[in-house]
């Protein structure tokens, strides 16, 4: 029987404790702040729906980080892929004729996924054929993809009824999520059936890593690349496969936004989902089922943060970023220290 590793959870609580100290320095009551942060999602079904929407996005983004991580890649490019694929979803939703109906939604999904996957494969391409480092390539691509997306939307598909930088709404025929059961239950909040897809995705990834040949190859390559190559696992295949899967999950974040929530592309819609996904994955130590839970925790914090402005005197929503940073730091530290201890004892 394996011992359950609580180090990330311990780190999380240390992080919360440290942030509380900071709150005291700002002359606020940490109890109140924690209550706002953790309790705001309970206020109404609508708030809950919003939290679950964040959960959905964080879970996809977490998966987009964790799979390349198993292959030994630090994938920091999800943000760019999310933005680019959301742009694709919006554009397809605007230009496809209404008469396609449900088939149109399928087409939008496929096109968006292809864009997400190709965007991620760009990183693999530079890594495999040009010996670029995946972190550097991904960071640069994040800016490039964001610029492309903004340009395409503002030049060609700007919403004529709005002063904000955003696209027109997609064709009403493709706004099927408006009527789905989950959305209706949560009083037309941002959440949609994509939540179910996120849960299924985590289960599927768990199965993929445990039971499939490709999953094993990715894990083996990540742990000992020289041995993996000697046993006939090609570096090329692992890089393209792991990043391809990551791009697929990034594109699902884009779809969740455009087909499931706003039905348009808003410039700057992502509160850095791609980067928060890294935290989610690390908090769960890469375990796909754990990602489901850690994304919920992060979503609760994220939702609560937006209420800090209203509920406290001195703190703003930016404070939640400070808090997130402290928690990330403590979690990563705890995991690292525990890892070192295990290694030393072995």
């Amino acid at each position, binding site marked *: 029987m394996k011992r359950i590793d609580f180090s990330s959870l311990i780190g999380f609580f240390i992080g919360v404790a440290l942030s509380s100290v900071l709150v005291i320095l700002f002359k606020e009551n940490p109890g109140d702040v924690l209550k706002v942060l953790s309790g705001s999602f309970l206020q109404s079904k609508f708030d809950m729906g919003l939290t679950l929407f964040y959960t959905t996005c964080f879970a996809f983004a977490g998966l987009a980080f964790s799979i390349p991580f198993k292959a030994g890649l630090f994938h920091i490019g999800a943000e760019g892929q999310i933005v680019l694929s959301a742009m694709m979803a919006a554009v397809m939703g605007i230009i496809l004729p209404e008469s396609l109906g449900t088939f149109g939604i399928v087409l939008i999904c496929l096109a968006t996924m292809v864009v997400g996957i190709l965007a991620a494969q760009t990183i693999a391409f530079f890594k495999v054929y040009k010996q670029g480092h995946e972190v550097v390539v991904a960071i640069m691509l994040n800016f490039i993809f964001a610029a492309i997306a903004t340009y395409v939307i503002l030049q060609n598909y700007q919403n004529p009824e709005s002063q904000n930088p955003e696209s027109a709404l997609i064709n009403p025929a493709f706004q099927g999520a408006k009527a789905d059961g989950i959305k209706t239950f949560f009083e037309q909040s941002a959440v949609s059936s994509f939540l179910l897809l996120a849960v299924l995705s985590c289960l599927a990834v768990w199965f993929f890593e445990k039971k499939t040949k490709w999953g094993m190859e990715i894990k*083996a390559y990540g742990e000992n690349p020289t*041995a993996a190559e*000697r046993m006939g696992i090609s570096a090329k295949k692992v890089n393209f496969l792991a990043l391809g899967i990551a791009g697929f999950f990034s594109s699902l974040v884009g779809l969740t936004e455009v087909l499931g929530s706003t039905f348009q592309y808003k410039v700057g819609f992502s509160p850095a989902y791609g980067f928060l996904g890294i935290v989610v994955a690390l908090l769960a130590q890469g375990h796909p089922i754990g990602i489901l839970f850690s994304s919920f925790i992060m979503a609760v914090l994220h939702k609560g943060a937006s209420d800090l402005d209203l509920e406290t005197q001195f703190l703003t929503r930016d404070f939640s970023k400070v808090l997130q940073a402290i928690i990330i730091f403590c979690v990563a530290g705890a995991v690292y220290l525990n890892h070192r201890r295990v290694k030393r004892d072995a």
Partner: protein
Amino acid sequence: MSVSNLIEFNNISKSYGDCVSLEQVHFSISTNQIHAIIGENGAGKSTLMKVLAGIVPPTSGAMSLRGKAYEPQSAQDSFREKIGFVHQHFQLADELTGWDHLELVARTQNIEQKKLVSIVQDKQAKFKWLLPLDKKIKAYSIGEQQRLEILRVLILDPEIIIFDEPTAVLSPDEIDDFLNFILDLKKQGHTLILISHKLNEIKKVADHVTILCRGKMIASDKGENFTVEQMAEKMIGRKQQPLKQEVVSETGKAHDLHLLGLKLHNNEILGVAGVDGNGQEDFIFKLRQNIALLKLKFGDISEDRYRYSIYPLQNLVENFLIRHREKFTKFGLVSKSSVRKEVEKIIQEWDVRPADSDKTMGALSGGNQQKFVIGRELWHSPDVILAAHPSRGVDIGAQEKIHQALLDQKKDHRAVVLLSSDLDEVLKLSDRFVILYKGAIKGPYVKGSLNNSQISQIMNGVELKGAGL
């Protein structure tokens, strides 16, 4: 307590969870002696030395040093007490030059640059070493890396030096040099603790021998009171078995494999001798390439287990599965339950300890890892087997088993390429052998057609006329 007892171990025990690694070990080490500690894999030698060096604390028991209680809290404490540790796996930074490395160590111990230069020059001269200290460590041969590691320890001027399997990675000439070297060290007043499997070497140099078996001390006595056979017997708990040479019919189905201009028969062991760094890597690379081209089944006992053969964080089932994944995959899915049976067979057949297929590879000792790797590589009845340094760092019991297994391959019409820097191993097992020198292949020579001095000459690049086949 006599004054000459430099170190005393008083009932030292160490357990990791339920796993007992040392049990009530009790003996002493005298000043200015070469004290050998021998035992099978997992007998607890390395753990005992880690306890002495302060790397791990004992679960119970006490040590005394120079008659005073000694309770090291960290490796730094052992430095202070003038204990130096030359590790089996060198702990060197690839990208630094040898000199950088020594300087780094010197700086942590507050040794001045001038003093360092003089110590290093002094030691190099004394041992007639010519270490290229301005080269990066990744360009060093293994022998050179070891010398650097020894220099690293020597600049701290230790009284006691621990060597963990020092000769496991050396070629025959280097081994002789090394043995002379530690005798020199002894003359200069150092006390040396030598952990080794090679009993002949221990017999040559050790003043005192302590034998561990499964965490317990079996015997501790003067070296002259043991013969090599007695040491081996005590270590493995039974008599050594002689190798069985199967008679192989010459008319065996001989599909020849054309390799680098060499023909490889499918009922022979072809030895590849040579000092490390003479093109072994390239040889192995080309061999693997040609075997892949010929679409033959390949058993790959690689030259570096850590780099090429194992995944330390994954368990034995996964370590097996990833190697033979094609055979256990249906529609892209792998079936672990059927694999487990095969893995348990290997564990039993090769006596891998601990016998638990859920243990991670990293939790096994080096010898047990090697046994598992060999079992795994022979599992699919390969046509050609590469055995590169198959018994490097492995104890006698395991070595016997490995050698016998390699000999047994011949009767099943499999070809074995045995590459080793241990010349005795090559000569003992192979039917024909080649010698690598600066990337060139000399030979093949039939076993017995050359005497040892001729072989040494070829290994050092002297062209012999009229020798060979």
